[in-house]
């Protein structure tokens, strides 16, 4: 696929969002995905690595990936420019269970870089064609500091909407940040969304997840309505190469989205 646009998301320039268009138009109709799924991005000569789709399938003709510069491949990606070609192998994984979520209220809890597929889901739900299928939408999003907040313009737009409640927070503020300061688990406690007919969707760093889950439990979210999108080192994305399994489940092929109920039956090796 062709890189159309590269947006630097964070002040430290370590996170960029890449908008890709299909170099071969025919692929467009074959690439049907749901929010929460991922794809293997590949740069020839460097290899491939998995990234969740940050765009919603309602944004036609384009795919977005938010990429944190960490290793060989991501560095190569960060050095690319509009017009460059990257390979996309996907969609892979299960994605968020849209049919199950339909009719319910949705609480989205995202921390840092893990927010990208939740952003995709939110945009999907906010689309005119879909908004009616979901109840109240609450988004709780946190970053380490204001400079690391992703999708700033879009969040500003969401903030103006009356069919979505947005709570943004940073772990520590600096300069002209007027929003909340505090760790996500505390903000969740503060916001205290009702668990009634509500799904909580969580994605973020392991430590955030560890402290958020008890809060959700306390608020009455049952484990089968608490969904997590997991991160593991993956390679093939097909459940073959053997590195991303948690117990008998492969995060790449059986996940990356699991309910807490499913996870509690698996070994705590993630």
């Amino acid at each position, binding site marked *: 696929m*062709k890189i159309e646009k590269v947006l630097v998301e964070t002040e430290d320039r370590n996170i960029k969002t890449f908008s890709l268009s299909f170099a071969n138009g025919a692929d467009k109709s074959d690439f049907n995905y749901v929010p929460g799924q991922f794809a293997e991005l*590949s740069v*020839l*000569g*460097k*290899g*491939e*690595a998995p990234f969740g789709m940050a765009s919603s399938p309602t944004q036609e003709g384009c795919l977005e990936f938010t990429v*944190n510069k*960490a*290793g060989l491949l*991501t560095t190569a990606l960060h050095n690319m420019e509009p*017009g*460059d*070609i990257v390979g996309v192998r996907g969609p892979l994984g299960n994605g968020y269970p849209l049919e199950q979520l339909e009719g319910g209220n949705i609480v989205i809890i995202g921390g840092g870089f893990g927010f990208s597929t939740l952003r995709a889901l939110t945009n999907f739900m906010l689309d005119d064609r879909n908004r009616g299928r979901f109840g109240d939408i609450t988004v709780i999003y946190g970053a380490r500091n204001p400079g690391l907040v992703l999708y700033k313009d879009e969040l500003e737009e969401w903030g103006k909407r009356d069919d979505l409640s947005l709570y943004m927070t940073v772990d520590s503020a600096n300069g002209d940040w007027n929003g909340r300061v505090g760790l996500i688990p505390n903000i969740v406690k503060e916001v205290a969304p009702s668990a009634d007919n509500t799904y909580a969707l969580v994605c973020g*760093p*392991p430590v955030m997840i560890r402290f958020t889950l008890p809060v959700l439990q306390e608020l009455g979210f049952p484990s089968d309505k608490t969904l997590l999108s997991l*991160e*593991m*080192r993956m*390679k*093939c994305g*097909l*459940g*073959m*190469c*053997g*590195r*991303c*399994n*948690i*117990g*008998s489940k492969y995060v790449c*092929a059986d996940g990356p989205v699991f309910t807490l109920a499913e996870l509690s039956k698996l*070994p*705590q*090796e*993630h």
Partner: protein
Amino acid sequence: MIAKIVRESDLINLLGEWLKEYELIAPVKRDNLVVFDRVDSAGEVLFNYSNTVKSAKELLLPQSETLFTYSSVDHSASIEAHFNDAAPKLLFGVRPCDAKSFLLLDKVFDGERYKDAYYLNRRANTLVVTIGCVKPRTTCFCTSVNGGPFSEDGSDLMLIDIGDAYVVKVTSDRGAGLLEGAELEDAGEDDLASMKRVIQDAEASMSPKLAIEGRQENLESIFDDPIWGPLTEKCLGCGVCTYLCPTCHCFDIIDEARDSQGERIRVWDSCQFSQFTLQASGFNPRLTNKERLRQRVMHKFSYFPKNYGLTGCVGCGRCIQECPVNLDIRDVLNDLLMESVIK
């Protein structure tokens, strides 16, 4: 059951015939090692051996294979997929454990969700002629994992040495095709009786069975048990067990590039290596040899059976023979099962 009798001279003739149509891969001696390799004449084939050092899996899943090559110019690239191994191959002289391992690999690479074209291509082009194990080694434990020295799983033909000849059992349609045109006598009553005796003797000589079939729940119940610590303490974290194993199939996908050209390569990897599950963030869910060896054991004896209904081990005993510190998987399993029962 179709059973023919093959004398030594018949076998040389048969191999000669097969050589005309197939690339023949058979056990041969290289230095002091018995390995599978391509042979050009029947004379090179080794018949009298216990097993090869490496398993036969690399015929279907080579240690490294090019998936595609590419060349890129400016903003475009041309990619060419590689299916090099289309030549029909005949794998002669595998042991029943290795033949059975192909069925396990099929579960992974010919799965319900995804299929691996490279693997399937080779699989479809490979015929398997097995030689039953008249003299199992003490490290063999195939009978503990639903196999046996004469298990026919995964074989197209099965040869059983009855002393002065081989009884050849046809175990698949493709196997029957291999004997087409060959003028072979049917195995007589005496031959079949000898065969039966040979089989009984071999089976009787097997080490006592381990009680591991159907115990995946037991293993699961002791995932967090402290026993894993002492059990894995001497493990060096090398890849001998996984690389010699006929069923281990973990791999990595890497690119190798030179200037504007390069290739994407699939290469064996091992769950025993420290970097295997290391995430970009620096977090590693399997931090020490303990977690990594636990993964290997659990994968074979709990996860694999859970996902595919079959134990992910064929009991060939290679890991037992070659582990540099003699970490014997049978001991590990026995201790684990004991622990799970006590609990």
